[in-house]
């Protein structure tokens, strides 16, 4: 099992493999997000309580759910890098961080935008929004730490450790924030998707969630490939690549 993993740990092979995966990820992501968004924004029925403003969930919910998944992916990758000392895994973790931060930011902005018509105010210390805000801080911490090291091989290792520490803390933070919220606010204002959501609303939402996941994967692959090239710029295979690709 680990022998197999190690064979892909070699930067050159990781670069080539990710190059093969990239077109699939990007094509699927574009088509799924296209279908999901058009369906959700134009064809899905109007909500009887919220009118058309509910349609922001087709962006908000995928972003929110993927913001957490991206953190998990980053921490998993960092864990692999730490335990089996695989540099490619550290780089993958470092590649995910800014994407995760942007997705989290999108979730926050769309959440606030949704809040305006719902609650009449942009920001409410709602449990979910607060957790999302803390998640953004965790991402920014990882990014800031990565940026602070001159030696990027070390930077990726350090950022990886922080990501793992963060992932252990996320459930505790989430739980404590929810609990804090339930103490300080009655449960009247809370974003809860109705569990009995109409299928015409649910399907485009699910398609968009999947599309967002693939999009994050695709952007991660692009950044991962760039990271590999930057870290190996003095290796012969990268020079060769630059010679052959650079001419075009």
């Amino acid at each position, binding site marked *: 099992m680990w022998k197999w993993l190690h064979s892909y740990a070699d930067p050159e092979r990781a670069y080539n493999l990710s190059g093969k995966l990239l077109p699939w990820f990007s094509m699927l992501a574009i088509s799924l997000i296209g279908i999901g968004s058009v369906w959700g924004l134009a064809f899905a029925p109007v909500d009887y309580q919220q009118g058309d403003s509910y349609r922001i969930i087709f962006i908000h919910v995928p972003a929110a759910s993927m913001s957490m998944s991206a953190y998990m992916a980053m921490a998993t990758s960092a864990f692999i890098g*730490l335990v089996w000392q695989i540099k490619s895994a550290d780089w993958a973790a470092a590649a995910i961080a800014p994407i995760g931060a942007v997705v989290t930011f999108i979730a926050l902005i769309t959440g606030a935008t949704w809040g305006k018509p719902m609650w009449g105010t942009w920001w409410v210390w709602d449990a979910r929004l607060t957790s999302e805000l*803390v998640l953004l*801080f*965790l991402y*920014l*911490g990882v990014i*800031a*730490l990565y940026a*602070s*090291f001159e*030696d990027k091989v*070390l930077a990726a*290792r*350090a950022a990886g*450790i*922080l990501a*793992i*520490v*963060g992932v*252990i*803390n996320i459930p*505790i*933070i989430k*739980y*404590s*924030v929810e*609990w*804090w919220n339930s*103490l300080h606010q009655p449960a009247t204002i809370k974003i809860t998707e109705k569990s009995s959501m109409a299928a015409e609303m649910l399907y485009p939402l699910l398609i968009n969630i999947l599309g967002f996941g693939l999009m994050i994967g695709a952007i991660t692959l692009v950044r991962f490939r760039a990271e590999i090239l930057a870290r190996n710029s003095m290796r012969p295979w990268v020079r060769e690549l630059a010679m052959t690709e650079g001419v075009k």
Partner: protein
Amino acid sequence: MKKGISFRQAFFTLLKRDLQIAIRHKGDIFNPLLFFILVVTLFPLGIGPEPQVLSRVAPGVIWVAALLASMLSLERLFKADYADGSLEQMLLSPQPLPLMVLAKVLAHWLLTGVPLILVAPLLAVLLHLDNNSYGALIATLALGTPVLSLLGAIGVALTVGLHKGGVLLSLLILPLYIPVLIFATTAIDAAGLNLPYSGHLAIIGAMLVGSLILAPFAIGASLRVSTN
């Protein structure tokens, strides 16, 4: 030349050395304490002296100030050792690294955390904290500040080789402090309303146990990266 030092002896050797150095360098103990007192005194000046308002915000103010003081004092935890090569020697010593790290964090907590706990009731008086809440304040600080030291030490270990100051450190560790802050302040609030707060303390205690077990490994791994 036999090697006969047990883990326990090694732990106390390091603890003793760190306490000895700190006692010869007293500023390190008093500065964070002064910071703590100063921040708390700023609040009545900022939000007005009404006792009701102050007693309402007292738990939060004291805890946020304790959090910041703890973080600021932590910054020096590994700095000197890093600069004079002691840290490398610690990493290469035959003693288990998590144990050594724990000794250093304990020494640091004894020097900076304990004084905070001792001076907190005084500040509570200034902020008109509810009379019922004093026990909860002391208990949450006693259980919570070690958690702050352990979690904070991870961030310090990650940044010790960098020339950046506390701003980066705060970005790394303040989000991790949120659960402690929430449970500690709600425990004090509950005590003020004469409600039981042992459940809150149990959760903070659980966080202490968890961080006692896990943090030393994270700190050790971080130090290995920082000294690379």
